[in-house]
């Protein structure tokens, strides 16, 4: 079921001067500040080692910032201990670079995992069972067009299929925020486009706030310029005056610093030699 769009937009994720210093004097993240509002899509670009995944891990509470403040769903989570984070994380969907699937569990068990193990689904002492969550699991797998792989193990799936199972597992709890770490890395262009189509579909049918780490400008271009048409069941280009164009923003990381934040049009006119590497004209890049 699509979630109703909230009447008032709210800040979903906010970094305030966040720094992470692993070794003395070497900042992995250097005073990074940004805000992401509900319904927005952020495309996080940057070279390898520029701090993209560290940012995602901080947003999930898997790493703690050395300085600065982090707000998730409007709440200051900087000082949260691990137990408090478990509750926050249960409202965040995440796709790891390689899918992050549990290799000893079947596809069905992987997708059912958050429903069966998160404390928020056990409220009132009523614990869900594999049977009770099966319709939700089936729906999530149908969404990623893998409804017939329930009994397979991750090792029996291709790289693209594993990512799709990861998307199903992340979206089965209907999260307000979905973080994707390089969802198309290492995939062929056709599979990569299938994954991005699923991301757009999830974003629009569920009204999910989406953050995507990627190396591919094409991914960002598709997310910024296309919408999913449920009647035709395919992507279609947004009209040039569409307000949705403003909802997708690009961020570029360089050596732990956020060096660009803006729309695709703003990215395209940047004269910075590093930033312009991620902003080549779509007509020449998008296949």
């Amino acid at each position: 079921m699509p979630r109703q769009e909230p009447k008032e937009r709210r800040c979903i994720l906010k970094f305030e001067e966040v720094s992470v210093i692993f070794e003395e004097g070497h900042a992995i993240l250097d005073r990074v500040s940004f805000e992401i509002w509900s319904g927005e899509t952020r495309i996080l670009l940057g070279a390898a080692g520029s701090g993209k995944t560290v940012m995602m891990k901080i947003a999930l509470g898997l790493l703690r910032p050395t300085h600065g403040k982090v707000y998730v769903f409007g709440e200051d989570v900087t000082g949260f201990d691990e137990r408090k984070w478990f509750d926050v994380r249960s409202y965040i969907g995440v796709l790891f670079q390689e899918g992050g699937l549990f290799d000893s569990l079947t596809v069905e068990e992987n997708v059912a995992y958050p429903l069966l193990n998160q404390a928020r689904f056990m409220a009132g002492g009523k614990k869900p069972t594999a049977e009770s969550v099966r319709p939700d699991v089936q729906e999530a797998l149908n969404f990623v067009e893998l409804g017939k792989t329930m009994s397979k193990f991750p090792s029996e799936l291709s790289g693209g299929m594993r990512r799709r199972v990861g998307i199903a597992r992340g979206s089965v709890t209907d999260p307000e925020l979905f973080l994707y770490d390089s969802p198309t890395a290492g995939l062929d262009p056709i599979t990569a486009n299938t994954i991005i189509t699923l991301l757009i579909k999830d974003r629009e049918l569920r009204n999910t706030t989406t953050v995507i780490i990627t190396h591919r400008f094409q991914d960002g271009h598709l997310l910024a310029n296309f919408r999913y048409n449920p009647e035709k069941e395919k992507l279609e280009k947004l009209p040039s005056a569409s307000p949705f164009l403003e909802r997708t923003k690009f961020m570029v990381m360089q050596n732990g610093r956020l060096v660009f934040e803006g729309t695709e049009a703003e990215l395209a006119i940047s004269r910075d030699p590093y930033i312009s590497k991620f902003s080549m004209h779509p007509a020449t890049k998008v296949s």
Partner: protein
Amino acid sequence: MLAGRATANIVRRPFYGQDLILQMDAIGVGSLPITVLIGFFSGVIMALQMSRALSQYGATGQVGQITAITLVREMGPVLTALLIAGRNASGIASELGSMKVSEQIDAMRALGTDPVKKLVTPRLLAMCVTLPLLTIIADFVGLIGGYMVAVPLLRLTTGAQYWNNAWRSLEYNDIAQGLLKPFLFAVIIALVGCLYGMRTSGGTQGVGKATTQAVVVASVWIFIVTAVITRIFVNL
């Protein structure tokens, strides 16, 4: 810290009862055949060794007493614990180590579940329940092994005398240390296995290293703890 968190999680919701049952099955039922085998041959060897020593003093009738005391106080708990350390501390360390290096532990945290609660607490509880039970079984089967040597094989004593001596020689002190030791060994094996597993780094080579370290460290601690407990009980 790991011990504290794992213990505190026993009373915190949500409870992962199914994981506990699965671990009890893997550790307890899975280790039962090898425990019975080792326990039986411990008793056999003990009776064989004692038969020679006791015959020198014309006290072969005491074989039941010696076998019972040695098995219940020391050999049953220590041999069973070493066996479980080899079998399960390594299994726990390699399983959790593989999950750590393939980022499955991070995925578990990211999916809003506590890896300590989901992975460590069920293993700790299962080990604390099953290891004392396995030790009791090993002790009993060891006594049967001793009986097989002492009565039908070497005819050192009668069956009634063997069992009577074995039963009467055991005091509350022996039973207490025979049950306290496996409980403490269970805590050591589970926590060492989980700790080395969850601290694994360095890919598949790291998993192998963590597995070896877990078995070695658990085994060493088993000997240290048994020495300390024995020292305490000897003075009681």
